[in-house]
């Protein structure tokens, strides 16, 4: 089998997100970039499938973005991926999720993937759009927010358990298909030291606009249908109203405030 894993470089959850002076960018100072946490489940699942099948299954990690995304590609290689592809071109800058999905779809198309794995959403834009859009561009089925994945014995179909409100859906898919991974699908491994050293020797293949059947006006800022006007911080709430007294008095006053002042009950 050929498994392609989409990995994204995002600010880690501990980073303080500060809006840049221009209002339309995030200040990169003090931001540590890591592999999108949900993508770790995707890499791990690909590796587990390869280990289970014990055949010539290969795992290819692919990421789109500036040079810093090579770090997450190397992490994927260190975890055990066989190959890595870096999709990068000045023309791709300024694209939105759908535009980037179009580029990635074309970069993935020639790879002959049987299964494409990604994380359920990027914790930067929280859009959860890219993988579904890639699925549409490639004309293949998808299952998102998957907590369990089972391959059929002949490796042509897949069953995915996906989480919806108040229930789990079991989705049956013919391969090739796209699956986005949710926390709990597996426990991602640490990159081992031999893995880190071996990753050094693996080449990261580059893909630019010239390698894809797309025109400059279809990609990046030129092809973008949405525009970022401004970033805002969350409006501050007014200071908390602390309710004094003993428990009985507090309870009475709280209920009164919720009914008469906040009007939420």
């Amino acid at each position, binding site marked *: 089998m050929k498994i392609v894993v989409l990995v994204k470089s995002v600010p880690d959850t501990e980073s303080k997100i500060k809006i840049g002076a221009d209002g339309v960018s995030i200040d990169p100072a003090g931001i540590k970039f890591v592999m999108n946490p949900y993508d770790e489940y995707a890499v791990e699942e690909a590796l587990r499938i390869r280990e289970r099948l014990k055949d010539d299954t290969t795992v290819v990690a692919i990421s789109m973005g500036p040079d810093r995304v090579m770090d997450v590609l190397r992490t994927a290689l260190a975890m055990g991926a066989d190959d890595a592809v870096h999709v990068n071109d000045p023309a791709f800058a300024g694209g939105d999720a*759908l535009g980037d999905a179009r580029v990635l779809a074309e970069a993935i198309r020639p790879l002959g993937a049987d299964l494409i794995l990604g994380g359920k959403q990027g914790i930067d*834009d929280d*859009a959860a759009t890219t993988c579904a859009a890639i699925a549409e561009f490639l004309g293949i089925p*998808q299952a998102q927010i998957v907590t369990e994945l089972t391959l059929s014995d002949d490796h042509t179909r897949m069953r995915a358990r996906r989480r919806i409100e108040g229930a789990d859906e079991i989705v049956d898919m013919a391969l090739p298909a796209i699956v986005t991974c949710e926390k709990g699908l597996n426990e991602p491994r640490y990159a081992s030291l031999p893995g880190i050293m071996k990753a050094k020797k693996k080449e990261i293949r580059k893909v630019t606009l010239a390698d894809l059947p797309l025109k400059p006006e279809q990609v990046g800022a030129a092809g973008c249908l949405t525009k970022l006007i401004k970033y805002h911080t969350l409006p501050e709430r007014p200071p908390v109203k602390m309710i004094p007294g003993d428990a009985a008095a507090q309870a009475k006053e*709280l209920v009164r405030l919720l009914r008469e002042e906040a009007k*939420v009950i």
Partner: protein
Amino acid sequence: MAKGVLVFGEVRGGALKPITRELVSAANQLAQAGGGSVAIAVIGEGADAAVAEAKSLPVAKVFTAKHALLASYSSQAYAAALAAVVTAADAGIVLFGATVTGRDLSARTAARCGASLFADCTELSLVGDVLHVRRPVYSGKVYAELESSAPIQMASIRPNVFPPVSGSGSAEVVDVPVQIDDAMLRGRVVEVVETSTGAKDLTEAEVIVSGGRSLKSAENFSILEDLAKTIGASVGASRAAVDAGYRPHSAQVGQTGKVVNPRLYFAVGISGAIQHLVGMRTSKVIVAINKDENAPIFQKADYGIVGDLFDVVPKVTEEFKKLLGT
């Protein structure tokens, strides 16, 4: 002529999901600003009850797309069907609920139609032919204000952002013929396994009572369940409480749990670590009950009570019972 606003009417268990009423409210606001008419799309087989309900809402038309192969959800097939409806309705704006299926389908449909897409919006308006939205990014630490003037614009909207409409009208039902073949059915839902006891999913709840590790045991959560039952709320939990085994993971609110948007949120015995706040900070009103006056939660709450939750919460429940006569 202004293009129409189409609402995707998600069907669950044969009925229209409640968020549809909020989407219709949003759609009507947009139509008022930009002209054009509002319609609902109901896709699938055996959705007659949903269609009947959709008809009664304040919309001009209900478009249906029926096909045997649309009996169960398949993102590929539904996207194709919905795209056909978008064309038939001459829709310039398509609204989805930011539910799992809504976000799933909106992405595919937008890709198929070459439309723009804004996911999980908390604000939405139309100025001329420019759709203007706000949506949370970086786990809600920052809000992005965006706009689009693409010929077709799509957006998924968070629950509890727009007020639900009610109605007793009778819209016209138009059936749209769709071409669905087996090739589009390469992925479909074959089984649905209920995981909750039918209680409202936290992401859709309007009132939530959440507990932290201070509850000390799974049994003690009954104090919160009593309050929840009295005021019609769902029960949530912090990660610490879930890790300690007091509630299942499906109840977890926070960065690695669910993001909720109720109009009222009780944080009981929850300290207010950023990982929890990320999951509930857009709640309209936040009430914090904690015995530690320095707990960070008080900085994010609207109302705060410093006290022993085991003493305070039952008394709050009593007061609500008196108020609501339940």
